């Protein structure tokens, strides 16, 4: 029996070319139109050092990297223990390793009797014979697994050619020799395992993106004019991508001296009428909080991306967590309205970014995109047509509303209006000269300490929420809406929740999950509707202090709906597995 869904792990030391191998595998599968999902993991070294990838390819859509490894390739056992969490060894795994590796077998954390098969292959030796160097053992390994498990073979060769093309024909040939040698070794010397043979139908080629790239591309697509930022893991790729491409369209990118400068620079840019954005993570977003308050009181459209990482302080810079929710919603001193959005996968990063600019420009406030390291750093294969269509709803991305001639006769930048939105003039507009301030101000923008004005202005700034709540609704529901068990989660936990809902259904447990894209303002109506038939609700989040469940409780009296709450909150680091969520569902179902 063949299969159309396979999970592969590859680990090795510095110089083993693990990341290159993963990228090639990812590209070849995407070329053949498969759904692919890849996570990378590194040791603490800046460059080189041990690394691992976990890759899942499937004929059908996949929402996670998959829990259980079908195949594990280890080019160097010595460094494997570092990835024991990312590449969890469970029963029935097929292992491939180099027979020359002298690492003591008893130190490998798996019961040999429970694994399906362990292929020990002279990988380095084959590489040396085929290409004159052991360096190509990652490519030999690709040859071995592509032949053994029927992974996209031709596409793999094309990807190799494309990758090494600029290094010259000799290098291309040497790598093609290496992959052929790996494949021939399998044909001549090994027996295939039938139920691990991957079978699939070719489809239109897909593109490969990670979440950071999708945000960067989404921003440029939405008409970004100005970006200012400061490098910080795991968000730097956003600035790097924008720096490369935005100047082609006349936009400006500035690498600033710190995050305080970055947030203030984009506020300055917004003040002169430009669509502006910054991206950061961890400590960087903490530093930006005062500036976000300034954008809020000056009602200047700004987009702030936070690719969350493990915290607090320096925390786990390269790992994921959902610990910044409260800070995003209520960070900065004083009543400082802003909108908080959360993308749930790579494709959604694009969509959410376009939505962020739409809301920022229309409602004149800071919009925070709460991504995380899990979405930001993972690669997914995406249907390019879908990216082109996703924006259909926001085709009217327009610039902020500028004042009419009538309004300019006695221009009030912060004029009280029903929906809280006043017209916005910027340098270049004659007659629109005005004062903008972080200090409380009257309708003209002039400083005041009048308590009544502060009262009215605060309400004006919050009035925009009513309009936003009218304009938007939830759109991500999974499972059966009549189910009595509900699941509420946000952001990158979507994948595991979505697959757990399906698995639970197969086991006869009906659930209904909701994953909001607009986190704040709180879309009360939609939540209340969701709760109508629920008896038990599991709230899933990757933050030990439970900010999400506390936030929900602040807006919804779950008891009033007769709903028992089951918070499932754990510290971050590793992404949720489907089994973990499923286990929680089963536990709650039994209660």
């Amino acid at each position, binding site marked *: 029996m063949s299969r159309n869904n396979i999970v592969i792990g590859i680990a090795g030391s510095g110089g083993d070319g693990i990341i290159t191998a993963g990228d090639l595998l990812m590209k070849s599968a995407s070329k053949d139109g498969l759904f692919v999902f890849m996570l990378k993991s590194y040791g603490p070294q800046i460059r080189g050092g041990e690394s691992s990838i976990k890759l899942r390819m499937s004929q059908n859509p996949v929402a996670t990297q998959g829990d259980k490894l079908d195949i594990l390739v280890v080019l160097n056992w010595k460094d494997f223990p570092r990835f024991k969490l990312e590449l969890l060894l469970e029963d029935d795994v097929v292992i491939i390793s180099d027979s020359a590796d002298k690492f003591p077998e008893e130190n490998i954390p798996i019961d040999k009797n429970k694994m399906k098969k362990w292929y020990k292959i002279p990988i380095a030796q084959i590489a040396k014979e085929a290409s004159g160097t052991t360096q190509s053992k990652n490519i030999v390994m690709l040859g071995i697994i592509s032949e053994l498990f029927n992974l996209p073979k031709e596409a793999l060769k094309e990807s190799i050619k494309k990758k090494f093309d600029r290094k010259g024909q000799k290098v291309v040939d040497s790598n093609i020799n290496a992959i052929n040698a790996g494949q021939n070794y399998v044909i001549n010397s090994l027996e295939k395992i039938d139920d691990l043979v991957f079978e699939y139908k070719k489809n239109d080629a897909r593109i490969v993106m990670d979440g950071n790239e999708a945000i960067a591309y989404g921003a440029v697509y939405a008409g970004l004019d*100005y970006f200012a930022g400061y490098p910080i893991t795991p968000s730097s790729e956003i600035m790097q991508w924008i720096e490369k491409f935005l100047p082609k369209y006349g936009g400006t990118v500035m690498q600033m001296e710190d995050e305080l400068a970055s947030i203030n620079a984009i506020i300055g*840019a917004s003040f002169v009428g430009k669509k502006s954005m910054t991206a950061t993570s961890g400590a960087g977003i903490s530093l930006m909080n005062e500036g976000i308050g300034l954008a809020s009181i000056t009602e200047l459209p700004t987009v702030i991306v936070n690719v969350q990482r493990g915290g607090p302080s320096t925390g786990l810079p390269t790992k994921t967590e959902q610990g910044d929710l409260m800070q995003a919603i209520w960070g900065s001193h004083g009543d400082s309205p802003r909108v908080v959005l959360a993308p749930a996968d790579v494709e959604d990063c694009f969509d959410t970014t376009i939505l962020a600019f739409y809301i920022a420009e229309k409602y004149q406030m800071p919009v925070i995109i709460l991504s995380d390291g899990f979405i930001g750093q993972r690669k997914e294969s995406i249907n390019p047509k879908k990216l082109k269509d996703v924006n259909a709803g926001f085709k009217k991305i327009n610039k902020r509303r500028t004042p009419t001639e009538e309004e300019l006769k006695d221009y009030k930048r912060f004029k009280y209006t029903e929906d809280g939105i006043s017209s916005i003039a910027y340098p270049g507009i004659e007659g629109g000269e005005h004062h903008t*301030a972080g200090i409380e101000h009257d309708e003209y923008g002039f400083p005041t300490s009048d308590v009544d004005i502060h009262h009215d202005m605060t309400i004006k700034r919050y009035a925009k929420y009513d309009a936003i709540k009218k304009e938007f609704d939830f759109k991500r529901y999974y499972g059966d809406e009549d189910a009595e068990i509900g699941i509420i989660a946000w952001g990158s936990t979507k994948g595991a929740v979505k697959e757990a809902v399906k698995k639970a259904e197969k086991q006869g447990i009906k659930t209904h999950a909701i994953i909001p894209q607009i986190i704040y303002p709180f879309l009360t109506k939609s939540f209340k509707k969701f709760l109508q038939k629920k008896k038990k609700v599991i709230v899933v989040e990757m933050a030990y202090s439970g900010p999400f469940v506390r936030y929900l409780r602040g807006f919804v009296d779950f008891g009033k709906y007769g709903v028992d709450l089951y918070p499932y909150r754990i510290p971050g680091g590793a992404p949720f597995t489907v089994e973990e969520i499923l286990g929680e569902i089963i536990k709650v179902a039994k209660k």
Partner: protein
Amino acid sequence: MKTFTVKDYKSKIKPVWCPGCGDYGVLNSLYKALEKLQLPPHKTAVMSGIGCSSRLPGYMGTYGFNGIHGRVLPLASGAKMANPENTVIAVGGDGDGFSIGGGHIMHAARKNIDITYIVMDNSIYGLTKGQASPTTQLEVKTKTTSYGNLITSFNPIRTLIAYKASFVARIFSANMKHSTDIIAEAIAHKGFSFINALSPCVTFRGKEQYDYFRNKSMMLPDDYDPTDEVRAFDYANDEGTLELGVIYKNIRPTYTDIIKENEKRAKDAGVPSKLGLLHNFEV
């Protein structure tokens, strides 16, 4: 063509500064400098941080922005670079600029962002009612130096020359004619222009601060060449006198020039349609 007068650069509200505050002199010199240059108010932005002097944008008939403490330079840098067609002037005090915001100056100077930065320096925190600032002189008693200030004061001119700011000047608020000329020259200068404006605080430093600045300040000699970096440092190092005028100058590409060159290179490498950018993700 419309001619602008000082009135066009004034807003509807009156300054809240104490009577005798040096900032009035700087404000009036700024009005006159803008009139001299005939800059359209709607294409001019005056921005600030926090402090007594940072109230200044509110008194301008141009676009004005009173931001947060210490961050006027990034705010002004973003405003300038997002649309270089506008004239951007940053203002603030010595606490805002040299203490909380001190880290930003070297970067605005290094990048040579084409803005003018006027620091109204009274060597005291006025808005918070009289604490020591980075430029408070030795032995001066303030609310946070009860036994006299024992910390060496910061020398902004020397530091700005070291940062290679492309225009470094000093003015004295009481000398409005000279201040007007220097501010106009600074705004017209292509690149980052820094002005240290001696601007007494009569409330917390007393009327004597006027005498102190008057006695210590002197005009630079007529034949002085501000591009002579060694002489500029000599003047800056000699803290016995405070020279007024343009102390140091260098001409090099502004950040606007740099961004233009960078944009040209980016475009020369090919400009796909925005949908065409997807090509970069093809496998």
